[in-house]
């Protein structure tokens, strides 16, 4: 079951800042700073982190919406960059994306039917009749009946719009879907309906998800493995829900303990300070200014992501000896 579907190695994205003055050295925002991970087929890989950590940029690089500055992406073992125009277009059938904000993810001037049919037209799949059948079937699968085809986005609720977003990603029968904060804008009762839908579709169609979110409860519920990002780097990857192999990295532990728990009021050490400015990240480990367990080495040397157990990697000097 767990053949490797996607391999990311050294993925980097630097946004050049408009140069203020002639003398000023070129400034760069290191949105994503050399991340590597693998996603197995049929797995839900959760990607969490606070705003500005680069998780959304990573998602958009996987879908080739954003061109990476460095690093390589392998889909089913084949490098993604440098593909011919036609090969790239074919690849786009297999990799899809669902966005967070339901209000700007659907073209307001087009009907739902048009939006769902467009990918089929782009890839010249079937004729008019067959396409309409695929669209109505896909709508059924996301819990909407065929009557939605003639409706416009402004007639739908947030939850319904998100279902259409998911349907639009499914219509080309992809293998891998990047889900970028798809539930954060929804109310709890609607959120649970969408999470169930995503889980059901994943099992029925054997899909693989990269599930991006800042809501740790949601990620812990739905993901098999969780990657934690901080200021453009992955600091830890661990198996979700496996009690004894819980998170080790100081930031991950602080992050998960900061989440208010509806079951009991937790007394927890609150992480002080703000996320540093990505234009001039602190030397060594980017987390050292806020880290409760900071050591001298942390200020000078950048830690590497190292395996510390099956499916468990951490990038922190405390665990550098691979104990």
């Amino acid at each position, binding site marked *: 079951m767990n053949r490797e579907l996607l391999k990311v190695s050294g993925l980097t994205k630097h946004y050049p800042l408009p140069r203020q003055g002639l003398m000023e050295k070129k400034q760069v925002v290191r949105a994503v700073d050399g991340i590597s991970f693998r996603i197995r087929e049929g797995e839900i890989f959760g990607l969490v982190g606070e705003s500005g950590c680069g998780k959304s940029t990573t998602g958009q690089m996987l879908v080739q919406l954003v061109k990476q500055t460095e690093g390589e992406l392998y889909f089913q073992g084949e490098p993604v960059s440098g593909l011919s125009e036609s090969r790239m277009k074919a690849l786009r059938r297999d990799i899809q994306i669902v966005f967070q904000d339901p209000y700007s993810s659907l073209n307001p001037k087009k009907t739902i039917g048009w939006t769902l049919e467009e990918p089929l037209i782009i890839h010249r799949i079937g004729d008019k009749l067959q396409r309409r059948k695929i669209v109505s079937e896909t709508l059924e699968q996301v819990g909407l009946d065929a009557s939605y085809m003639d409706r416009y986005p402004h007639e739908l609720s947030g939850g319904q719009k998100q279902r259409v977003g998911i349907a639009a990603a499914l219509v080309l029968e992809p293998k891998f879907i990047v889900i970028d904060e798809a539930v954060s804008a929804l109310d709890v009762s609607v959120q649970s309906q969408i999470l169930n839908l995503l889980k059901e579709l994943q099992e029925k169609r054997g899909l693989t998800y990269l599930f991006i979110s800042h809501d740790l409860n949601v990620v812990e519920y739905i993901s098999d493995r969780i990657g934690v990002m901080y200021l453009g780097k992955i600091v830890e990857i661990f198996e*979700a829900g496996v009690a004894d192999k819980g998170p080790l990295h100081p930031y991950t532990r602080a992050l998960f303990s900061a989440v208010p728990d509806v079951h009991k009021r937790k007394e927890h050490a609150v992480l002080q300070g703000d996320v540093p400015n990505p234009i001039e990240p602190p030397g060594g480990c980017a987390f050292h200014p806020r880290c409760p367990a900071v050591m001298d080495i942390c200020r000078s040397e950048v830690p590497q992501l190292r395996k510390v157990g099956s499916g468990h990697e951490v990038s922190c000097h405390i665990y550098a000896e691979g104990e």
Partner: protein
Amino acid sequence: MTNSLLEMRDLEVAFTLGKQDYPALQQMTFQIGEKETVGIVGESGCGKSLTSLSIMGLLPGTAKITKGEIRLDGKSLVTSSAQQWSGVRGKDITMIFQDPMTALNPLMPVGKQIAEMALLHLGVSRKEARQLALDMMAKVGLSRVDRLYGDYPHQLSGGMMQRIMIAMALICQPKLLIADEPTTALDVTIQAQILNLLRDMNHSTGTAMLFISHDLGVIREVCDRVIVMYAGYMVEEAPVEELLDHPRHPYTAGLLQSLPGADKRGRILYTIPGRVPPLTGRRTGCPFAGRCPSATAICAAEVPQMKKAGEQHLVRCHLVAG
């Protein structure tokens, strides 16, 4: 029950769309004691923000109070003239909002906007106001306050801006602070800092707090008592542990079951069927009747009354024995 600082009795607020009035809040009755932190939780459109705005007399658009009473320290707020309002708003009751980044005047230094509050209500000189503002900024955990005083809103992070808002809200030692989803727009670690700060401020200054949120976890973290709202009605009210551990109203129970979390991995989440009725589509009877798994004939006919279902525990449901 400490004697009530704020009392709302049978309040009704309605919007006028075209010719017709649509009730957005009905039968709102609750108290807030001195030093107490009361939470209001509910999904979008349930009227929680409208409740706080009606206390501040800042009802948006065509909304107006059609029935009921709000009293602060015995003084009615509903009938206050504009002149009386300015004595209450900002002095006895203050408010902080959800998105700190847009909540301040972008063209005025943040420190000056805090000092403006002191100048307005404490009748102090400009220099004294500035010093009061600087002290308050330090008290809310901001560092290098002298430099920060002259900075503009766009130069600050979300967390710092919310601390500025809290400093502004507490500088005149108000009796009641209303916090409308103050941490929803913030990251988890920053949210924890702000929730801690609000709790400490409540303990140290004794300012009562009305905390609005859609997040049940945050409610548990901050509030003593909590009110659950649905489609303009209060459906349940109880001390926070009692309500979250023993929910009696089907909607509250449904919400708690549909919350995702590590404990529910691999299992299908419970979902409340259907959708919240829009403002214009609210019919007679219990507002939750359409979506309630154990709804009966009477539920669709009559709006249930709030009944005692335990120590300080009130529920608006026909099925719960009074």
